[in-house]
């Protein structure tokens, strides 16, 4: 016996969750297996579609008009513009009022914790009042115990980047946090639960105490930006409460890693996945597969019969009609490298790369790095291709950062590619279930 489903998605990040959601729209039983927690926890929570062209041109005002010009083999070229739009619609439906940006094709410019502005297509509502395109001077507030966000420096960088408003930064002590390296979840929990903290004025709720700490620093600015630690489960309440108390707009500047906006996005996706009836298995890796090689003959690509999940040493077979590989890139370890080769560890799908590892990179750290494009090549149905451009397996689709042919860090296209390819892979997997 094996644990049986129709579609099995391997990988639990943005691509995997989207594939599971798209597949679950068909009349099929879907399971998502995720080993380690997804790199969403490292992610900013922003959904970029395309911020810069592969040539470096940008920031692009309209990512959609640039997509048709992408080179052959780019994931967007594989799935086509229409799929990108449909995938974003799926995301917008899942995100509801937690995200903004659906009202326009144009990229938004979001200030980051380093004080740069990042072109992105969808952003958490908590980020919205901070957009660089919005009017109004901004006060950025940092905390002594949170060195990852240096508010005065970020403000100076924003001004240097040419934002059309004045930005000013102050650093204050976060009320109720004693230790120098408190976890970001500790800040969020304090505010979520509005825990009682000790202040000079006596005991008070954490939200009131924070507002009172910031108030003396507030000039005429109509908006105040905080690092993204303003609550987790009740983030919207925390932000509204602070805005009411301070009488200004309050926004979050994306942080990371680790990143609360990434964790909130993870929660949003997994709630949707659960609502869609997808079965979820986490904490265990898929380590191997078996094919029906004996039955296939020479006629076509093999079918994956079942995959093996390793549960602390026991081999747990999982069987499905169709499989989606969404295990991530080098960071998520869906693509791995050693001194000899670059490979995809579960199905050993072909990953094109130069034989000499000194050709994997260029000396200019910020140059056009070949390794950034390493990944699995796919056909237009997102089936991984072998060295002869033939599908590796008849019933395997790939999505997200495991794909090759694009540099998501340079292009600012990671979220959009995960959504679009996850959507297409999941939909096709469901359609091909017989």
């Amino acid at each position: 016996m094996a644990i049986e489903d129709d579609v099995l998605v391997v990988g639990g990040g943005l691509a995997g969750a989207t594939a599971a959601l798209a597949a679950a729209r068909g009349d099929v039983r879907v399971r998502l297996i995720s080993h380690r927690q997804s790199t969403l926890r490292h992610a900013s929570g922003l959904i970029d579609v395309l911020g810069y062209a592969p040539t470096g041109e940008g920031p692009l005002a309209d990512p959609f008009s640039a997509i048709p010009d992408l080179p052959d083999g780019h994931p967007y070229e594989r799935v086509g513009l229409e799929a990108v739009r449909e995938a974003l619609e799926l995301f917008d439906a899942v995100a509801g009022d937690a995200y903004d940006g659906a009202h326009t094709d144009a990229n938004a410019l979001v200030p980051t914790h380093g004080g740069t502005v990042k072109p992105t297509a969808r952003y958490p509502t908590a980020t919205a009042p901070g957009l660089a395109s919005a009017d109004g001077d901004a006060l950025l507030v940092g905390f002594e115990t949170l060195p990852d966000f240096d508010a005065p420096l970020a403000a100076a960088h924003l001004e240097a980047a040419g934002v059309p408003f004045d930005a000013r930064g102050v650093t204050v002590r976060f009320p109720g946090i004693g230790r120098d390296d408190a976890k970001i979840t500790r800040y969020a929990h304090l505010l979520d639960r509005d825990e009682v903290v000790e202040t000079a004025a006596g005991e008070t709720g954490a939200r009131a105490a924070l507002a009172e700490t910031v108030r003396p620093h507030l000039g005429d600015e109509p908006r105040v930006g905080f690092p993204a630690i303003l609550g987790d489960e009740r983030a919207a309440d925390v932000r509204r409460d602070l805005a009411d108390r301070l009488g200004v707009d309050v926004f979050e500047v994306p942080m990371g890693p680790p990143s609360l906006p990434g964790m909130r996005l993870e929660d949003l996706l997994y709630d949707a996945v659960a609502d869609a009836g997808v079965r979820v298995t986490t904490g265990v890796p898929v380590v191997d597969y078996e094919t029906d090689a004996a039955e296939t003959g020479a006629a076509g690509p093999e079918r994956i019969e079942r995959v093996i999940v390793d549960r602390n040493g026991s081999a747990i077979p999982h069987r499905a009609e169709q499989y989606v590989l969404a295990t991530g890139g080098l960071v998520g370890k869906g693509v791995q490298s050693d001194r000899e080769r670059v490979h995809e560890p579960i199905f050993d799908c072909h990953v094109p790369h130069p034989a000499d590892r000194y050709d994997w990179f260029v000396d200019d750290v910020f140059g056009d790095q070949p390794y950034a494009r390493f990944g699995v090549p796919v056909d237009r149905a997102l089936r991984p291709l072998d060295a002869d451009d033939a599908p590796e397996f008849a019933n395997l689709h790939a999505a997200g950062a495991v794909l090759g042919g694009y540099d998501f860090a340079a292009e600012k296209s990671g979220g959009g590619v995960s959504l679009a390819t996850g959507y297409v892979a999941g939909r096709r997997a469901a359609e091909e279930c017989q």
Partner: protein
Amino acid sequence: MSDADRPTDDVSIDDDDQDDAFEPIQVFPEGGETDLRPGADDCYKCSTCDTNCPVAEVDDEFPGPKFQGPEQWRLKRQEDHDIDESVMKCSNCMRCDSACPSSVPLSQMHNTARGEYVEERMDKLSREYVRNRILANYRRLAPLAAAFPRTTNVVMGLSATQWLGEKVLGITSQREFPEFATETFREWWAKRGGNATSKKRAREARVASDATHPSDHASGTSSREQTERGGAKVENPDKRVAYFHGCYSNYNTPEVAKALVRVYEHFGYEILVPDQHCSGTPMFANGMLADARRSAETNVRELGAALEEGADIVASCSSCSMSLRQEYPELFDIAGIEDVAANTWDAVEYLRVHEDLERALEGTSVGDEFDDFAYHAPCHARNQGLDGQTVELLERIDGVEAHDVGDSCSGISGTYGWKAENYETSMKIGSEMFEHMNDADAAQGLTECPTCSMQMEHGTGYEITHTLEVLAAALVGPDAEARAQ
């Protein structure tokens, strides 16, 4: 293998490039041992573990798993640093393990550090040490309590006892001690005829099953051969499992253990109940590694013998299976320990893989005995990839549903929440689960972990059931034992 372990690289270089050639620097002494614990080097400080730590989220004093693991390890290498006492605030939920993208063995490092702290820095006459030792060795006191269960229950329930427990030992008086069953599982098992009766019943069930589903015969008798096992084994054509019931289902909730017996015999399995000691989970969590090792030696010996008889090992408590599967081979080097780890299963997952449990449950019902449940997946089930299992299986049963109450930790973490100094932290961690349970469309709770179940009951007043009890009700019915007589 990390790069540090590799001597030099061996790229050939063209002669005319000699000037630009890469010359590796010898970082570590020739042939010398590197002093970084394996895995510590894999930590790239992403801090994802810290965002998963339920203690760090509510306790400003706790430095978090990244510090307790790789950072503390490095500090300690400096020799003028002792293990930091904050390691005792770790609740051993092991969530950091599945959080780490680099597979750093965090909980193993924490267990080792805690053991060293207790061994070297704790005063063995201190109230805290004595209290921890008592809590960790619950299994040693339980037989006495179980011998006079009614007396024990009354005495432990007295407010004077609780007051004394808090004042003298630092065991919180906020909690009610778990009741001891009037008949332990092992007493019931012996009275019922032990392993021999189980063998007979399993055979009867197989004969009955073959008569009704002759086509199932092949899968029914050969499922063990379908599962590959490491090394040469005595293969037995019969279906046989060794049950690691753990202490709690023996002394406190024998109904869970009995449910397992009924479900397994229903599928034609012969059950062995080997001699066993505590799994060691509470000992790891209290840094009592020597105690844990003694228990592990007993368990590995007895369970290893059962393996030789062709049985696989199943456990009904998620912390027990976690301990046997992961913590044993990480912490101890005992002959046969790897074999025991590799052949231990969660009791429900074993049936999912070896039988068609879902089809067997299809269309069954549990009558009025159970209604919908608020289900909490214990951390130690979550870490084993078992978090969705109960919800999936209960979907097959008519008229009953399990509503997952989310991924928060219950907060009690075995003995952790029993300590007076941790009680408040424990309840703060649990508050999210309590709220979700109260919001769920159910007034009964469901989980696979005995101490999570105490916390669920304590925080909500709900009655808590084990998944196996629901499966037994669906597959065999509540009065199976009576019918079988």
